[in-house]
């Protein structure tokens, strides 16, 4: 009986060791991580916004996803060279998209965000279009009115 117990222990011990090793987790610093940061106009950080990272392979699912930290930051480790797309959505109507070009040696260059820059040109274009649209509408309406009056007389 004693012999059998020792035999059993001898057989089970490697399995238990393997099982413990399978659940062990180890963290380590990695180099080449890319950090991005999203801010509102005025440099206020976009906190807790949803971020999706899309790889150059154009997969159907995002390579990474999560939330921005309290400073509006988010980091990921790109697996391959190419243009990586980082999308941010704060759920309150603010979206931003950042393109990050990663070289073979891991050097990253961010293409400046085209969405966030609320430049004066866009404001002026917006206002000009608004007044243009309603101005044209008014002219057209007057023409229709004048035509109607002409037909009546």
């Amino acid at each position: 009986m004693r012999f059998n117990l020792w035999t059993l222990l001898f057989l089970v011990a490697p399995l238990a060791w393997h099982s413990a090793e399978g659940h062990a987790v180890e963290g380590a610093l990695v180099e080449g991580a890319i950090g991005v940061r999203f801010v509102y106009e005025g440099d206020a950080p976009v906190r807790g916004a949803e971020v999706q990272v899309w790889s150059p392979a154009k997969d159907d699912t995002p390579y990474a996803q999560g939330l921005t930290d309290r400073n509006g930051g988010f980091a990921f480790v790109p697996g391959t060279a190419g243009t990586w797309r980082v999308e941010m959505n704060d759920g309150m109507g603010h979206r931003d998209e950042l393109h990050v070009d990663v070289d073979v040696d891991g050097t990253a260059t961010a293409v400046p965000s085209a969405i966030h820059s609320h430049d004066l040109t866009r404001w002026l274009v917006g206002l000009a279009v608004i007044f243009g649209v309603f101005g044209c509408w008014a002219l057209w309406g007057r023409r229709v009115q004048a035509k109607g009056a002409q037909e009546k007389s």
Partner: protein
Amino acid sequence: MHISEGILATPLLGGAWAAAAAGLVYGMRRTQPEDMPRVALCSAAFFVVTFVRIPLGPAHLHLAATGLVGILLGWRAFPALLVALLLQAVLFQFGGLAVLGANTVVMALPAVGAYYLYRRWSRSADPRRIAVAAGAVGALAITGNVLIMAAFLLLTDRAFAVPALGVLLFHVPLMLVEGVVTALAVAFLFKVRRDLLPNPEGPP
């Protein structure tokens, strides 16, 4: 206060587009050429004022002025706000093109409600009563905006219940700010250009 692209269910987007189109057609039919400067000005004001951000905790609130736009335009708020929202979507990626119909309904429907409420509550020659009525209408318009947005979210997925309630509570300070802004603006117009405000005794 824009609904982002990719959140709402497709049938809801279609329904919202149908409602927005109906409001747009009705608003266009009620718009005369001489109304255009006012419509354009309100559309431009909405386009600009929604970029005014009020920092509140970790996020920001945006002014909307839908109450004031509604009081001044009535059903014409639909074309005015649709054009402004379209430009915000195209130029600044606020909201989106697919969700433009929903955002138009969110903004313009309470604006039309604000018009009728103001007509009902402004049967007075006392400027203070007019200002109070306008303030209440301005606050209620924002409440309407948030409630319709919350309804859209809830109709898409019940899981949005908590975020929708959060959005509602988060906008309570904005309701107060909008109420004050609308009251001041209408009180000023009542003093200098009363003809721009709807006549409670006239046809709707």
